[in-house]
């Protein structure tokens, strides 16, 4: 998969992402790093353990990365979850995790399919 095809799948504007992050080489480097880190797993675990303070921090970090790396579709529920946790609303957190989980899995799979 090319990077342009990847960003068509994440629903982002490829040219805008490249312009923001300088060039394809940089973007590929960041995507590989994102793939190797446990941003979503940490969020998932903290929600499961009802540690909402940690969950808020994790959601906030994931939100920033979704925006920066151009994961448009996934960013929407992550932003909503972040805003709810910020406001102390925790009852929908499990539902959000269930929505985000397959979107995150898609991103990780697509990153793995990117051609060198």
């Amino acid at each position, binding site marked *: 998969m090319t990077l342009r095809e990847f960003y068509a799948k994440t629903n982002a504007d490829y040219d805008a992402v490249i*312009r923001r992050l300088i060039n394809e080489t940089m973007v590929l480097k960041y995507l590989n790093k994102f793939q190797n*880190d446990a941003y979503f797993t940490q969020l998932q675990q903290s929600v499961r353990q009802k540690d909402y303070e940690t969950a808020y921090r994790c959601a906030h*970090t994931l939100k920033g990365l979704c925006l920066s790396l151009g994961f448009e579709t996934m960013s929407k529920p992550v932003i909503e979850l972040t805003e709810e946790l910020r406001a102390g609303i925790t009852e929908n957190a499990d539902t959000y995790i269930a929505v985000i989980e397959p979107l995150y899995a898609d991103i990780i799979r697509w990153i793995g399919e990117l051609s060198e």
Partner: protein
Amino acid sequence: MRIAVCDDNQLDRDIIKDFLHTYMTEKSIPNTITEYENGMNLIYDIEEGRYYDMVFLDIFMDQILGMDIARKLRNVGYTGNIVFLTSTAEFAVDSYEVEASGYLLKPHDYEKLCGLLNRIIDRTNIGHFQVSVRNTIYSIPFGEIVYVESRNNICILHRSDGSEYTIYKKLSEVELQLNESRFLRCHQSYLVNMSYISKADSQFELTTGDVVLIRQRSQKEIRKIYQEFASKGVKV
């Protein structure tokens, strides 16, 4: 330029470091970038006398808010630039209190960072040339230096507002101090800021109306250096 990047997320640090490295390379600004995962370590280093021209601070970190770190930095006497990084603008008002130089909202955007750095560098002592006239020291931003010419044993610096300053140094010494890619030693007696060149043929015509000579035997090479510079679209 000495820069600290303080963010508890490695990937965010990597992106900012890459942006800064690219910017500094494009501008030929020597730099060192130090990473901090933890704001307290940054405060300890500043307290122990380490100096940074610029500190990039994530607003929302694990143990302590970036805004609190900024307050502590000011309390321990840090006078350099502070730039906040965040994905929400909720602390924008507080940033005035700590005299922040800027605020970068996520998503990360290289062009936005360039714009902010240009503004900071333009109004601070980074990239300034000091000239002493009688008992007064003038600090001239590199961007306002049009050209420097050598006359006998002194140099005359021509500024964009039309003023002239006498420098009691050799042109080769001034050239060493103006160590940015925009300055070109195009002649034994001239060092020109290429941002001000409006026409290049057997000599350089400048936007100020002045004319700067080009070394006769290296005309081709000098014009080529200028063409490469002009094609990058580097601003003054």
